[in-house]
């Protein structure tokens, strides 16, 4: 029986100043991570509306990760502190609804942490892949 290999789809929101630069650094250093990870650039992690996260799940994402500057290092001084609260509450709510908690993550990656970026993406992709397809928060109309 031929089974198409399952590949998770992961959306990574990266803040322009730290994490996107960290992702670039991972590239500069040729540190590989799965191609399943697709990065969307935002000015700051605090630009990420919980609705974007839900939208990604609706459209078939299997995991959503937000990356921002380390707390205290936000380019806009305080954006990531708000991100931290918003996502803590959102993730807790998703968990409350029975959505697998491994599908969501927030990670602080500085512009100097190319290796951390790659390692984080490898780890996250592996965890999401282990869960298999996102069934609980999918919109069948949007399935590929």
């Amino acid at each position: 029986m031929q089974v198409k290999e399952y590949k998770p789809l992961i959306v990574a929101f990266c803040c322009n100043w730290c994490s996107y630069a960290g992702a670039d650094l991972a590239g500069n250093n040729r540190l590989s991570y799965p191609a399943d990870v697709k990065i969307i650039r935002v000015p700051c992690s605090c630009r990420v509306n919980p609705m974007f996260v839900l939208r990604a799940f609706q459209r078939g994402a299997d995991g959503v990760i937000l990356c921002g500057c380390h707390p205290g290092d936000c380019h806009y001084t305080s954006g990531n502190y708000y991100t931290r609260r918003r996502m803590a509450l959102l993730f807790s709510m998703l968990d409350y609804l029975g959505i697998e908690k491994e599908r969501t993550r927030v990670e602080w990656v500085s512009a100097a942490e190319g290796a951390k970026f790659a390692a984080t993406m490898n780890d996250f992709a592996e965890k999401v892949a282990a869960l298999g397809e996102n069934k609980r928060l999918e919109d069948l109309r949007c399935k590929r």
Partner: protein
Amino acid sequence: MQRIGVFVCWCGSNIAGTVDVQAVSDALKNEPGVVFSTNYQYMCSQAGQNMIKDAVAEHKLTGIVVCSCSPRMHEATFRKTAAAAGINPYMVEIANIREQCSWVHKDMVTGTEKAIILGKAAVAKVNLNTPLTPGESPVTKRALVIGGGIAGIQTALDIADAGFPVDIVEKKPTIGGKMAQLDKTFPTLDCAACILTPKMVDVAQNDKIRIFSYSEVTDVKGFVGNFDVTIKKHARYVKEDICTGCGACTEKCPMKKVPNEFNLGMDNRSAIYIPFAQAVPKVATIDPNYCNMLKNGKCGVCSKVCAAGAIDYKQQDEFIEEKYGAIVVATGFNPISMDKFDEFAYNQSKDVITSLEFERLTNAAGPTAGKLLRPSDLKHPHTIVFVQCVGSRCDACAEKGKEYCSKICCMYTAKHAMLTRDKYPDTDVYVFYIDVRTPGKNFDEFYRRAVEEYGVHYIKGMVGKVTPEGDKLKVQASDLLANKQLHIDADLVVLAAAIEPDKSARPLATMLTASMDTNDFFTEAHPKLRPVESPTAGVFLSGACQGPKDIPETVSQAGAAASKVIGLLAKDKLTGNPCVASSNELMCNGCSTCERVCPYGAITYENKEFRMPDRTTAIRRIAVVNPAVCQGCGCCTVACPSGAMDLRGFANSQIIAEVDAICK
């Protein structure tokens, strides 16, 4: 509908090695809005850019997607290209298929697949891009300098020299600051007054500079180029414009027992006073805490003796509002209190003094007229012990003192020791040090001269206890190199107290929304590359408010801050970042949620009249974003409950389009 051109870059083999660029440009050709798609070896090269320009003209493109390296690398390049081709630079989006694709994936199939998806996301975004124009705001061509010490004076003089008006706000009755209290300056030993007072006079005489002495800043509103500042001018009970500074009042004032702060309380002044002979402005000030007339209405002597009629017991505090384009913080430092270090007996003996007090004791205008006499009995001290690092370099767990090195103490102590030996060769001078830190031009040479030519006893070790007994100060100390405990009967002990930022700095930082470190020093926008700017646009740092500094360093920083201010004031208009937030007033609730998360205070509210569907009108409170202040983080867009707030360049619809494109 947009007419989008897609340009896929090979970056030599950097991209083309792992991504089938032809497949990418072919795949993107079929995306909505794309009318042209191609690929080329080096898109950023002159030839590549010309290719883009030609395509814009040929295909009447309205938007451009470049699939290439990171936007952090060449976004600016391609925006310029677009502008040169006649379309708005913000109609360009970059798909990062090098750093985030070809360099991290090894397999051609997956690399190409991902590159196509990233390209589709960029196309989806450009479809929703709108031309953006950076906002402009005017610049008030006037600077405010807060603090009138050497840092503030130098900054003000340099700004005025470039032709811009400057105001100095100084909380004391005179400018001059700490430097006015110093005797000589290292490493050249010029007299501090001789080099400072001419600058003070320059300030007074410069018609571009106004001095608000005995004043403080009480409110700051606005933003870079457009600050609205309120200055509180304390009542000095003397009309500044009439007082001639003759000093008759200070001589005749019957209340003469006021501790003289200029001499750090080592002598007294009258209740009406001029801090020192070269004060600027040279006008008298009445100290309301001591003046009998102000306290109980009994006296009035100064008013009688003032020939000019300058005394005004009814004077009130005055509030001045002024607009400024730039603000320079130059609030300086103070020595820390010695209360927690009484093993050195500072509170128990008048003959244990701080280094700043020592400056006054050796200054010709000081309480002893420059003769080195110890405060308790005015006798000449024959043995003097200097203690370095009192309260500096303390570990936080010791719960007293500061963690940093105060930087100036090693040099001034060498100066004090040297000058003492020079003037009074019969005096034994000991300096207890942990390390002698002398990085600076001619600094180590200076310290070596103190040791080698002037015979100062430098002892590696620390003083543990000072015990006043009889007319001696019994100093118990360690000599680490000799491995001995020393017992010295000293006549005078001088403590090199750590320095800390002035107490006015923290409330000021709050007003300015400027950030501070845990020690209350102002933080710089970048510790190496932007050392004289605060992270808050339009606020600059000068002198010891940013960290411990000696005079040469302070003056350099003052000049640097001035040049940054001049650079700002020289512009007629400030061009902002066009990717800023803006609120849709029809949807805005006026709920103030966005304002609370804005780190820049860019959002204000106004009441606006709206026509309702039933033809009535209603007043609604709505948010207004100041594009000159907004930095474009987007925090407000998420906080906004109704979704009225959106971010240009990273709009909700654009990000959602990217999400959809990726997840398709």
